[in-house]
């Protein structure tokens, strides 16, 4: 295994630990916003998509790259925006007015 790969594993494991620890008991009403926010973060794959799209050669790579960027971008932009909307509404308790 390459040193880079091993370093990746170390980073992966540590980041996963942070992920485990960071989520303490979450109030139920925050479950959906948290899920949505976490989902938006998983759009980090946009970085990979940009690299793939920019560096890819050939039509197939181009198509794959374009789709990857598009998909990732939907996830990122949509994800953060919708989370923000949820949380905005969340300030007001569900109900009249």
């Amino acid at each position, binding site marked *: *295994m*390459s040193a*880079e*790969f091993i370093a*990746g594993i170390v*980073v*992966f*494991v540590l*980041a*996963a*630990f*942070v*992920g485990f620890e*960071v*989520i*303490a008991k979450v*109030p*139920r*009403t925050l*479950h*959906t*916003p*948290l*899920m*949505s*926010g*976490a*989902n938006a*973060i*998983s759009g*980090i*794959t*946009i*970085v*990979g*998509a*940009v*690299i*793939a*799209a*920019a*560096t*890819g050669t050939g039509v197939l790579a181009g198509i*794959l790259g*374009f*789709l990857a*960027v598009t*998909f990732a*971008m*939907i*996830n*990122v932009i*949509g*994800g953060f925006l*919708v989370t*923000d909307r949820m*949380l905005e509404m969340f*300030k007001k*308790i*569900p109900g009249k007015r």
Partner: protein
Amino acid sequence: MTELAYLAAGVLFIVGLKGLTSPRTARRGNRIAALGMLVAIVVVVVDLIGLDARLAWGIVIAGVIVGGGIGAFLAIRVQMTDMPQLVAAFNGFGGGASALVAAAAVVGSHAVMPTETAVTTSLSLVIGAITLTGSFIAFGKLQGIVPSRQVFPPGGQTTNAVIALGAVVAAGFGIFADSATAYWIATGLAAILGVTTVLPIGGADMPVVISLLNSFSGIAAAMAGFVIGNQALIVGGALVGAAGLILTIEMAVAMNRSIASILFSQFGGGATAEDIGTKPVNRANADDAAIALAYAERVMIVPGYGLAVAQAQHAVKDLANALEDRGIEVTYAIHPVAGRMPGHMNVLLAEADVSYDLLLDLDQANPKFSQTDVVLIVGANDVVNPSARTDEASPIYGMPILNVDDARTAIVVKRSLSPGFAGIDNPLFYEDTTLMFFADAKQALEDALAAIDAL
């Protein structure tokens, strides 16, 4: 330096995610995470520009515009009630993107991949594909496009096991034989598996499934990070993978379900928790009640016979104290016939040493409900039954009741939908603005208090 910038993005993700776990910081948390994402994108662009090679920027820009546009449009246009399915859809796209990144790597690699890269590539493809299709089925179920009841593939869970095995074998072959075709087969099987696994799950369990798929999309991103050797993806992906898993477990616990029982349900499983009434009600738990109460300015408590049965007088006082400590105005509305004897509520509240000054009778309370944020109805039923006002056929028509439906939100604490002394159904329970908190009153109030303290 790129790596350090990515690290900064990762730190922003961590801080943001942590913020999202508490109501006070949630919105800021989300924005911090978004900032992290911006940092990561800027870094990759700057980094690529620094590469000094001919790059297909057109494709990138096109993708950003199209994807960003679609995402923004959907996010802004969506109805409040449709948000969960939208999250599912977004999640599907995310998983798909990771699979596509891995696919691009397969297409673009001209040498034989090292084993470790091959393994992560296939993982990224398989997990990404499952996430993609699984999320879309979840979206469909919630949106009503796909039937929300349990739909089993022919052969049931056995079929799923076979498909899963097939995907593993294909991926294994791809890794050892360095065969692109094998990868595509594995990816296709995984896509099918996503569909067939989610279809048999009932609509009520969808939030848990979406959360699990969210965890998957994180892992797919991390795997894609290994494939292209990018630490930002590894950090962000691992973070979401782990956080999503914990969240999934918590959600399942909150719904009183195990993840296994959700995923591998047989006929007749699932969604039992929703079956109490025939008409739908908004169910709430201690956390929901806690948030509604803690963020209110004016709270009115309406005690009824159930408070007495549960002997919850001390619990209600404790809860009121906690709210008052937060600067919330708390009063009590006592209906003349609440309980089972004249003055029943007074006896109990006096025992808990609730000041007489806070007790409002019917005439004092009714004009106040419209300025009340939350009415907490503890084991009362007949005395808050709006059919006394609205339904001429009701045996209690004409009786003055506490007009709790004037308040912004009503939280009703009782054990079930069963009727009170007068034996009649209560339309209040089915109102949009009513949250039903089914529990023994004492337990419910104690739990809500604990939840408020934990906010």
